């Protein structure tokens, strides 16, 4: 089996699956403009960019990453367009989304 390109978290070649080129989507992560692809969830786009820490635990502020991918574990909860506790593993990435790491329980405004 082929070793993939170093530095890229995207699957390039696969014996069974095809990942055709998709439209690029720009979004804002922690104040910076970054890119994902059409069809990505917020979490998959961030992971592909090498962003592993998605939130911090409420009491001890320990880093939290992607864990269950089914919207169950709350580890990937982030602030999206100002709204806290968005389950980024089951939320589709949309153009110009503003995504921030969540450090607390999040307040309902």
């Amino acid at each position, binding site marked *: *089996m082929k070793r993939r390109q170093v530095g890229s978290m995207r699957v390039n070649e696969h014996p069974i699956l095809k990942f055709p080129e998709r439209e690029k989507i720009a979004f804002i992560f922690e104040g910076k403009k970054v890119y994902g692809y059409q069809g990505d969830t917020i979490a998959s786009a961030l*992971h592909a960019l090498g962003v*592993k*820490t998605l939130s911090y635990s409420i009491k001890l502020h320990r880093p*939290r*990453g*992607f864990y269950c991918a*089914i919207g169950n574990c709350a580890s990937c909860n982030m602030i999206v367009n100002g709204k806290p506790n968005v389950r980024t*593993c089951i939320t589709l990435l949309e153009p110009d989304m503003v995504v921030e790491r969540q450090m607390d329980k999040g307040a309902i405004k």
Partner: protein
Amino acid sequence: MIQKELIIIGGGPSGLCAAKMAAEAGVSVLLCDRSLKLGGQLIKQTHKFFGSKAQYAKTRGFDIAKILIDDVIHHPMVEIMTEATVVGLYPDKVVTVYHNDTYIKYQAQTIIVATGASEKFLAFENNDLPGIYGAGAVQTLMNLYGVLPGQDIIMVGSGNIGLIVSYQLLQAGVNVKAIVEAAPTIGGYKVHASKIRRLGIPIMTQTTIQKAIGKEHLEAVELVSLDDKWQPISGTEKTMPIDALCISVGLSPMHQLLSMVNAKTKFIPELGGFVPVIDDHHQTTVEGIFACGDAVGIEEASSAMMEGYLTGLYVTKHLHKEHPEQQKLMEKYEYELNMLRNGPFGVKTKIGLEKLRRGETHAE
């Protein structure tokens, strides 16, 4: 309130199959799923299935999902809601669905809870570091979104999921350093283990993770050998640099919604943990609320499909309706489900089901 004859919670294999049967019998169905797409965990499964024709043997998981979705998506009796999380279930069969930032209330005559399962976790130091994933999550990330979990990975657990996902990681180009297994023997099918071994991946039995090392994310793990009493042997610690760790130590049925309506549950280790007490027709101890698939006991997707078809038919009967082939199909799927459980890997399930039924009074 919106009225529905049947609300199915969960659009995985069992939920989809239940929807098909009920819809064909003329039952109005609402199928809710919190994910972006229907199909449950089938949509990321690239391996071919075992079993017989009734369970789409030799077909890849994601292709089975397409078949099951096609069966219901255009059916006039089925309404489908994705990105719809059921957040409330009440004994009078009111269902609250969270969808598009709003809460929608439905009044159902019957409900099927087909919520599936969630991954179990493992206790060790620093087990919350980013870079430590559930095996199912890794499968989703790489097979559905085409994103790799890391460069170098260790798999914890040698059950079928651990073995299959390890192989899929290799296919995607990830360096699988080892599979570690606390038990003295490999948990999954020999055919999957042999495939892994032929590629030179060591399967280390009687070994576990002592701790994860890293500050912002995973950088290494410390492995340790276990003695015959499952105790760590000091002096056998070994540090391995990796940037991803995959946990595949089993699944727990998601019974939580059923607990909201006080359906009776029982702790059955053979079925994966707390499961609802159900009668022979998959009805829980709450009248009109049924459950099927992994939510009532961890098995393979093949069994979940058979249970789904059956539960769809049982609910139809409960609603005093009839599928055009009610009796024939009921016999067929009951036979198929039995066949699946008669294999060597069905032993655990059968013991679990026996325990679940023993000494229990059903629907009150």
